[in-house]
């Protein structure tokens, strides 16, 4: 019987083989194209996602909602412990609130004394999380704000509690946020109070690694981590989290943002700083340099 089947397929087989070979070649060519000219293909990918994902919103919203309800229900079952825990935390928070109020007053005074002007550019656009990366190996989410809302690649994203990630890929109506936990994410940070510089580098775990710490001895678990603004990737001073020590002795960042509930994210508008390139134009108005030049040439001519 099997032999019979073999002869029956003989006509179709070579054509099938060629077809399959062609398909595989086309796919591999796509991959090579991506490897050679990644930005172009990534832009195509972003455009595709931008078109497709919002149109499935009607299907995704109820399912996400149901899943959220299931999770909420699970948390009800632990309500007693949670209540106890919240009470304990509340007590601690009250103490902290006192401290914060005092510090706020002190800070206001000091800022006043120093004539510090806070960065006025820290305004934000808020977006809703539409979808995640889909693969367990990529940590990113898709927001429902995009180029139409003025989003630009590279802007920082927070959830109100702390830094969540940065914009990487903007479509017309959607933007992708690469989370701090993604293995491609690197963010320069400062560890307070010692002022050590480090890099928070994601590695697909809940607590991203603290890399390139200048002096390990000066930091301890519980220290605050804020963005440093180095490399003008992010504005400085956004809360990232706290230092934690892994069992293997390396330092990791316990993120302040609540990654379990990323529903709404704020995209911080960061305008590029005006670069200072020419020291001369700082000292004199623009026309002055020309004037001086013409004067000196006249002097040498005469």
């Amino acid at each position, binding site marked *: 019987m099997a032999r*019979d*089947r*073999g002869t029956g397929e003989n006509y179709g087989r070579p054509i099938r083989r060629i077809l399959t070979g062609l398909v595989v070649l086309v796919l591999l060519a796509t991959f090579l194209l991506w490897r050679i000219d990644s930005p172009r293909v990534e832009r195509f990918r972003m455009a595709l996602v931008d078109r497709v994902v919002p149109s499935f919103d009607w299907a995704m919203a109820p399912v996400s909602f149901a899943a959220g309800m299931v999770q909420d229900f699970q948390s009800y079952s632990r309500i007693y412990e949670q209540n106890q825990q919240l009470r304990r935390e509340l007590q601690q928070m009250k103490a902290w609130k006192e401290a914060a109020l005092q510090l706020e007053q002190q800070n206001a005074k000091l800022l006043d004394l120093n004539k510090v002007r806070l960065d006025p550019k820290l305004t934000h656009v808020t977006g809703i999380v539409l*979808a995640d990366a889909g693969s367990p190996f990529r940590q990113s989410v898709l927001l429902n704000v995009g180029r139409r809302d003025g989003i630009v690649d590279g802007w920082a994203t927070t959830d109100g509690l702390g830094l969540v990630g940065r914009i990487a890929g903007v479509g017309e109506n959607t933007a992708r946020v690469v989370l701090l936990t993604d293995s491609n994410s690197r963010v320069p940070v400062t560890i307070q109070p010692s002022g050590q510089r480090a890099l928070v580098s994601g590695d697909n775990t809940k607590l991203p690694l603290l890399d390139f710490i200048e002096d390990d001895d000066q930091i301890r678990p519980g220290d605050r981590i804020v963005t440093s603004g180095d490399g003008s990737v992010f504005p400085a001073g956004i809360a990232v989290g706290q230092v934690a020590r892994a069992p293997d002795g390396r330092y990791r960042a316990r993120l302040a943002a609540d990654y379990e509930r990323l529903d709404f994210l704020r995209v911080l508008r960061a305008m590029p700083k005006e670069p200072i390139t020419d020291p001369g134009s700082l000292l004199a108005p623009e026309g002055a340099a020309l004037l001086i030049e013409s004067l000196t040439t006249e002097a040498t001519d005469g």
Partner: protein
Amino acid sequence: MVDPRTLRRIGYAALYVAICLGLMIYNILPIDLQAGTIPGPDLMLCVTFAWVLRRPRWVPVLLIAAMFLVADLMFMRPPGLWAALVVLASEYLRNHDNGGGELTFGNEMLMVAATILTISLADRLVLSLLLVDQVPVRLTLLQFLTTIVAYPVVVLISHLGLGVRKMSPTEDALEARL
């Protein structure tokens, strides 16, 4: 008048597309955003292999290639590579099935496991040769394990729920002649 057998083939191909799209949408739902959890099984792969081994005619090469290319694009994977590997693997399984005839489920499991492991490793190899950033090996192996565990379940659901069964020899001969 459309031949009922062709109609059924088209119906199941449409069902395959629907299942793949459904799985993709389910995967991109923002339900669990925490990193470091155990990666879930690659259900699209399970469905594809299970169907290819049972009804090779219902899942044509072009369909598999298209579905996995879209998945590559949606899941932020390097586009094309994984799709190409899956097409090659499904072709291998298809030909094996045509030659072998009787395949017990134990053998099938072994063969599918070996195929998935091979393409996972090949994927990593190509990516590392081209210096693309990759996930840790641990995660790849974990996903391989969860996929293998999920495979029998997918086969069972396909068999009982969707009626994707192995062809009896007479039926097969009849279909081959057409």
